[in-house]
């Protein structure tokens, strides 16, 4: 038999568990990218993750690392408490837009501002996925959700928050970027950004965050492909991709 080379396998930083995510949901892709990065950096055995409240609440079953489950929005406070007593560990939070940009706004801004040495992966899918598709702080103007049935009216509901831009102005941040996982090129760039964010943490340069434009086909009432197209057309128009903060130290890593 011809010798075959194994070119693709499950990263060691993912468990073999089947995820509970809906078909076509991009949470799974993001999990895989993080796991590949942890493998490549050789830090799996000293990584501690904090899962949020949201669709990724069970992320601790999927990452093959030590993990805790935070209260809704409080992952950055938990990560702060944990990292301060475990400075040799690699700590990350994984948070949705309701978790990070609504109920947990104070915690993320303060942690970023203190320059906490952990990494936040922020999944922006423009809705509250877990509770059935209500309006999120990131829901686009005019976007219909179960709690904005006529479409988000900015006059009453306010404007969607641009988190990557908001966090970037804080002096404690070292690396802040907005990426997407909507096709092969964006996925490749997202992985590079996640890696740089973890390298920023390892080098002790300051707070690092990767916002990732994601899809929620179920609550957008679209098939997965349609959802990817909708995100490209509408979300990327409001949420431009790219780095919003690269400190000098981080630039030297690039």
């Amino acid at each position, binding site marked *: 038999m011809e010798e075959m080379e194994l070119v693709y396998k499950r990263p060691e930083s993912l468990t073999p568990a089947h995820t509970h995510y809906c078909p076509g949901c991009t949470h799974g892709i993001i999990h895989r990218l993080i796991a590949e990065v942890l493998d490549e950096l050789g830090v*799996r*055995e*000293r*990584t*501690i993750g*904090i*899962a949020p409240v949201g669709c990724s*609440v*069970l992320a*601790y*079953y999927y*990452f*093959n*690392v*030590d*993990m*805790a*489950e*935070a*209260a809704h929005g*409080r992952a950055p*406070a*938990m*990560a*702060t*408490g*944990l*990292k*301060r*007593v*475990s400075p040799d*560990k690699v700590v990350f939070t994984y948070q949705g837009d309701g978790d990070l940009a609504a109920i947990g706004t*104070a*915690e993320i801004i*303060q942690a970023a501002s203190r320059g906490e040495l952990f990494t936040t992966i922020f999944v922006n899918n423009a809705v509250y996925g877990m509770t059935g598709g209500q309006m999120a702080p990131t829901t686009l103007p005019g976007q219909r959700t179960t709690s904005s049935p006529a479409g988000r009216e900015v006059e009453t509901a306010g404007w969607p928050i641009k988190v990557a831009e908001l966090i970037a102005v804080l002096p404690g941040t070292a690396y802040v970027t907005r990426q997407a996982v909507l096709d092969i090129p964006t996925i490749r760039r997202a992985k590079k950004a996640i890696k740089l964010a973890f390298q920023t943490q390892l080098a002790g340069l300051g707070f690092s965050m990767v916002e990732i434009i994601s899809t929620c086909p179920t609550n957008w009432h679209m098939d997965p492909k349609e959802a990817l197209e909708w995100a490209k057309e509408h979300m990327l128009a409001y949420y431009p991709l790219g780095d919003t903060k690269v400190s000098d130290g981080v630039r030297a890593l690039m």
Partner: protein
Amino acid sequence: MAKELIEGNVAIAEAAIRAGLEAFYGYPITPQTEILEHLSWRMPQEGRVFLQAESEIASINMVYGAACAGVRVMTSSSSPGISLMQEGFSYIACSEVPAVVINVMRGGPGLGNVQPSQGDYFQAVKMAGHGDFHMIALAPASVQEAIDLVVLAFDLADRYRTIAMVVADGAIGQMMEPAELPPMRPVRRPEERPTWALTGAKGRKPNIITSLYLSAETLERVNLALQAKLRRIAAQETRWKEYRTEDAELLLVAFGTVGRICQTVVREARALGMRVGLLRPITLWPFPSTRLAALASRGRGILVVEMNAGQMVEDVRLAVEGCCPVQSYGRMGGVIPLPDEILPELKNM
């Protein structure tokens, strides 16, 4: 170590350091801010972690994070700040990680005032947060006892992987008294952190700390285990002090500062020939119900004195199950009940 004159709040902070406190996260609020201020310079001096959080919500979740890492961790606050921590208490209780919380109670409800109060009794013993759980609640009546109970709180929190709260009224926090601090215990070395802690999955399966159990049967099993642990705590850790109860036909029940005042009342009443005794609960949860029931069965009545509208009196009534009359005398808003007003209440019984 010799006795020194020391303020209650400073004593609490220093006792925590001596007990091996590795990290403190907190937010300023009167009348406990001296705890935070003292730790802000003493913790770095000892090479340990101090961080002023952005809120009490953040404080308790930082405590939760550090507790998951298996270190001795504490926060302190006063009544309104404790209300903000309740979600966190519930998560910590369900996840079974050890944490110590100090509540130097002030007058409420609302913003209330910064005078001493015992208005958070219900909160400490009955409604610490959502779901079925209790915290161990320890109530000191002197600066020395505050020191001793802080050390005990860390030991109990570790032993039972639970939250232990030291519930002090503002008078204890602000008072200066001679007291003796315990010897310094070093912080746990990294390799001494417990096996359940999040330390990185090196050469072992990942550790997971969660309070989420999606199936009803599983969550019920978790609850049953939690309840069994609480029963163990109640059986082994109930603490109280008695004064002149041997022949008492009237019993005073009071905790914290009021317990101390009632000791004076007992002396004054005895001088008048009344057979009065005092039971002072040290653990508010678990409550010394069994002992109270025994004392009640041979007495003529119980007077419960508190700096609130009458909260602990409900637990006293539950404990004695109607076998003698139970009356309540409470002052609110930061007013401290004095022997001169308590004695007539006793005489009327």
